[in-house]
C-alpha cells in the first residue's frame, strides 16, 4: 500500500497549540501526533486545534491515537478543536460518536477565534 510518511508540525497561537498532522493516520508513525499534543499539555496548554488540511484519511489505528488525545484533554478539562476536515474524516468521527468530544470548525482561524473569545 502506498502511504505518505506521516509527520507532524505545530505552533503556538496565544494560549492555544495548533497541530498540523500530515499524511495518512494509519500506523505507528501516528504516535507522533499524540506525543506532540502531550508536549503542549505537559506545558500546561489546555486548548488544542488540530488542523486536518493535510490528512484526508484515518483508520482504526488513527482513531485509537485520537482517542488518547481526547482522553488526555478530558482529564485536564481541556478543549480540542478540529478544523479543515475532509468529508471522510467528519463522517467517520460522526459515525463513531467522537464528534461530541470535539468542537468542529471549517477553518483554523474560526477555531482560534472561538478559543480566544468563546464564540466565532
Amino acid at each position, binding site marked *: 500500500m502506498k502511504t505518505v510518511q506521516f509527520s507532524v508540525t505545530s505552533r503556538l497561537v496565544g494560549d492555544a497549540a495548533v497541530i498540523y498532522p500530515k499524511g495518512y493516520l*494509519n500506523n505507528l508513525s501516528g504516535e507522533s501526533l499524540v506525543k506532540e499534543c502531550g508536549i503542549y499539555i505537559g506545558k500546561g496548554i489546555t486548548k488544542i486545534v488540530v488542523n486536518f488540511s493535510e490528512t484526508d484519511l484515518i*483508520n*482504526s*489505528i488513527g482513531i*485509537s491515537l485520537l482517542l488518547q488525545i481526547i482522553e488526555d484533554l478530558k482529564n485536564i478539562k481541556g478543549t480540542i478543536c478540529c478544523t479543515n476536515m475532509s468529508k471522510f474524516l467528519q463522517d467517520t468521527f460522526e459515525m463513531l*460518536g467522537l464528534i*461530541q*468530544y470535539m468542537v468542529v470548525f471549517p477553518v483554523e482561524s474560526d477555531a482560534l477565534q472561538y478559543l480566544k473569545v468563546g464564540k466565532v
Partner: protein
Amino acid sequence: MSAELKKALYNISALADLGQAITSESVFHEKIQSVFYVITGTFLANRGAILSYDKSADRLITVTQKGFPPADLDRVDPEKLMSLGKNEPFLIGDSPVLAIAGVKILAPLWVRDEFIGVLLLSGKLTGSPYTQEDLELLNVIAHQIAIALNNHSLFMDLSDKLEENRRLYEEMRHIYHGTLQAFAAAIDAKDAYTQNHSYRVAKYSTAIARELGWNEHDIEGMYVAGYLHDVGKLAISNDLLNKVTPFTPEERAEIRKHSTTSHNITSKIKFPWQNVQDMVWHHHERLDGCGYPEALAQESLSDGVRILSLADSFDAMTSQRPYRKKMDVQTAITELKKCLESQFDNKIMLVFCKVLEKEIKGELPEPDILPYLDRDSDLSVISSMLEAIIQELSAP
C-alpha cells in the same frame, strides 16, 4: 448511507487494518502495538491490554496495555480464563472472573487446544454498550491475535533453543581449544627447540586452507590437526628429542613412530571435524611414496595432509634445531620448491606462496605466517621470489 452500513464498513476496514498489522514486516512489539491500536480504535476503548500466557511459569505476561495498573494485570489468574469459551468475548458484568477495575469485556485467546493469553478492554469512550456485532467482530479479532501471539512464541522457543545450542557449541569449542593448548604446551615443554612449532604449523596450515577456499568448519579442523600433529612426540624421551649428534637408525625409527602415536592419541578423541586423525597420521608422507609411516603416495594423500606436510616442513626448516641452524626464508622456499612433486604438492605450494605474497603486500588484515618469520628477512627479495614461483606454477 445508513449509520449501520457506515459502521459495518468501518468494522470491515478495521479487520483489514488488523490483517495488515499482523502480516507487516515490523518487529513483534511494533506489530502487536499496531494490533492493539486497531482494537482500541475499533471499539473506542480507552483502556485495554493484551496478555500472553507463559506456560512454564503458569502466569500471564503483559505484552502491551494502556490504562490499567500493572500490578492488577500481574494478578490475573489464568485458570479462571481457561474455563471460558475459546476466543469467545465475555462481558464481565458482575462476574468474579477478573478483579480489575474498568475491564468491561475480555476474550480468552486460544489456538486449537492451546491457551495463548487474553485480551482485555474497558468500556467505550462514548459510554455506549458492546453490541452483538461488536462481540462477533471481537471473536474474529481474538482468533487472529491468538494465532499471531502463538506464532511469535513458537518462534521464540525455537530461537531460545538455537541460542542454547550455539552456546553449548561455543563452550565445547572453548574446551577443545583449551585442551589443544595444554597438549601443545606439553610438547613444547619436552622439546625446547620446537617451541611453538605446533602453534605455527596450525597457523600456516589454516592460512593455506583459507586461501584454498575451505569453509570455516574445515579450517578449524585443519587448525586442530596442525596443533596436534606432533602430539605423539610426548611418548619420545627428552634425551632423544634434544639429541645434538646425528640419530642412529634405531633412533630414527623411534622418532618416526611419533606420527602413528599422534594418530593413536587423537583417535581416542571424538572430534567434530573429519580427517584430523588422517592429517595427523600422514603428515610425514610424501607424494612419491617415500614417506612414513605407511608410504602412501599421490591420490592417497588428502589436501589436508599435503597442506600439513608443507607447513610442517617449512616451519621445521625456518626454526633452529639441536643438530642444525635455522634456514633463512628464501632458502627454505627454495628447498620446498626443489621437493615439489616428489614431496610437496604443486597446488599447495602455489597457494602457500600466494598467501605469503599477500601478507607481505599487506593485503590480508590478519597475517598468519609473516609475524613468525625471521625479522631480518628481506621481504622485497622474498616477494620477488614468490612472484616468480607463482608465475611458474600458474602456467598451464
